[in-house]
């Protein structure tokens, strides 16, 4: 075989392997989402761009940290085109669980609530957070459907592009099953008779300290030992005073894999956030009675209940801190969480 024949044979083999693995990559992520080939005047590309943990930073730079902070699988990206008009971008974020897709939507409950009907709208369980599963504003539609989080954005909003965006959203959720909110939400105290009202429109679910910091800044370091194995909720409460200057406090609930992990994380938090308080306080923190601290921005209280940590920040007085932490703590005790070691 001459050199040119060998080169030709090598190129044929290389090309065959390349095509095989390219096909395999798309095949690997084959899914049941049946997007329309055309929507209005916009036309779907031949194949989606596949983004996973290996190339997410190439696709979206530092924004990738957000998705890696949840249980992320991959993204399928379709850019619908229409001659010289602005494109419509469809991003399908395939997450490992419904909780993770819910978490992404929960980072911002703002926008116009959109209903596409069908099974996706019917929650199989009680709903505490906003009932919205799809939110629209300024050309961007965001939606949660089981383990799927979706962003559909018209680069220029027009009546036609809005119609196309809605058509795509409806096609994506069609025939998909509905999922409940994360279990952890059931422990949140939301009784109407309390002086503190849960801000359901500000409630967020997450697993990463970077995401926590983008909701409510705690520290530049991961002082609560958050990672993909934990579940966490930040839930603001506001005092019902009737005045326009309603005081907000921030309630943080975290579920760890076991009591040992929760206890260790609380010690880490105490050492980093409350370094002036003595070790006896840290020992006390392992009990289920809350600990209270007067800080620069108000009262902080925390408690450890089995594999759960509850912390409330920025309370105007110790009584408020006690009320919020005990009401939520009671929910954990009553609903069985404390005994799940």
């Amino acid at each position, binding site marked *: 075989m001459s050199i040119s024949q060998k080169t030709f044979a090598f190129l044929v083999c290389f090309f065959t392997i390349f095509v095989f693995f390219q096909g395999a990559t798309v095949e690997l992520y084959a899914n049941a989402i049946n997007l329309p080939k055309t929507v209005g005047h916009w036309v779907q590309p031949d194949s989606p761009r596949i983004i996973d943990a290996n190339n997410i930073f190439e696709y979206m730079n530092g924004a990738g940290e957000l998705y890696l902070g949840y249980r992320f699988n991959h993204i399928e990206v379709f850019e619908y085109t229409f001659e010289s008009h602005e494109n419509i971008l469809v991003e399908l974020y395939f997450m490992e669980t419904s909780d993770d897709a819910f978490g992404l939507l929960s980072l911002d409950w703002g926008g116009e609530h959109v209903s596409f009907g069908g099974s996706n709208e019917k929650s199989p369980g009680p709903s505490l957070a906003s009932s919205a599963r799809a939110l629209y504003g300024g050309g961007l539609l965001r939606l949660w459907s089981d383990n799927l989080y979706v962003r559909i954005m018209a680069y220029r909003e027009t009546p036609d592009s809005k119609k196309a965006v809605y058509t795509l959203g409806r096609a994506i959720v069609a025939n998909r099953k509905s999922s409940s909110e994360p279990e952890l939400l059931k422990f949140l105290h939301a009784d109407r008779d309390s002086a503190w009202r849960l801000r359901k429109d500000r409630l967020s679910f997450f697993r990463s300290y970077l995401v926590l910091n983008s909701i*409510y800044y705690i520290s530049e370091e991961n002082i609560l030992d958050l990672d993909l194995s934990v579940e966490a909720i930040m839930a603001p409460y506001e005092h019902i005073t009737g005045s326009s200057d309603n005081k907000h406090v921030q309630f943080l609930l975290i579920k760890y894999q076991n009591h040992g992990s929760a206890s260790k994380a609380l010690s880490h938090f105490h050492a980093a956030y409350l370094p002036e308080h003595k070790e006896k306080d840290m020992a006390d923190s392992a009990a289920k009675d809350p600990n209270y601290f007067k800080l620069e921005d108000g009262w902080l209280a925390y408690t450890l209940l089995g594999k759960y940590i509850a912390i409330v920040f920025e309370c105007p007085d110790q009584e408020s801190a006690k009320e919020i932490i005990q009401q939520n703590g009671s929910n954990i005790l009553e609903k069985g969480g404390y005994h799940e070691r």
Partner: protein
Amino acid sequence: MKDKKHMITRRDFIRGTVAATIGTSVLGFKWPEAEAKAVRSSLVTIIRDKKAMDSSKNVDIAILNQMLEQTLIKFTGEKTTGDAWLSLVKPDDVIGLVPTPHLNPTHDEFVDVVKSSLLSAGIPKDRIRNAQGSPSKAKACTALIALPALKAHWLTGIGTVLKNYIMYSGNPSRYHKSNSAKLGEIWNLPFVKGKTRLVLVDSLYPLCDKGPQPDPRYKWAYNGLIAGIDPVAVETVCLKIITEKRNAIRGEPWPLSPPPICVEAADKVYGLGTSRMEEIKIEHSGWEQDMLL
């Protein structure tokens, strides 16, 4: 105990001790407060024109060019645009324009207008280049014009001026997590320090929420150009505008999270300029509605 190391927390931010904490970790000693309190003054100009964009957000090039001319003349005190440029750069400089390519990118029209203006001032075409990117881009230039777009950022609070040079670090992901407060150190790299002749912020259509991806609900037509030589002063003014816009949108305080501690650190730890509004002289002209200052 391993946690004896003091790390930045919310409490440092509330107490105003962020700079001292970073200073200790970066410089190895407590930041001298007296030095930080030295009297300084920085000029920041804001030129706005209500008609800089139409209702579809198309940029009017002629108006944008006028805004740039006004900015240069107001900022330098020179009589013509050409003289203004030549007071900032030399004809034999290799001038790097540094726009922002991501999240809320700098308008291409703005980069083109700046380039045309430099050409009109007599700067040879082959001495003007796009310098956004790797460290080699900055190394090849003798002067830099920073052209960021006004925006918040989900990892650093604000992502406008200081973050615009992140690629010059050669390792941008290093600043995603606990080092995000240290963005100022990039401006002190040997091949960057002292090269920035002007910071010109494209504030035509800013983004006031952190993203991490653009959400059009948080963009608005400010129709402005913000300029200065002191990058921290310009960032501080940008921060004020973004903060005011966020509060206006929600009708209640809506602080940036994480807080933009990189701005205070750029002042007090890296000595790049002032982050104190009382030390910043703001001169503005044009459209005054919703200045947010």
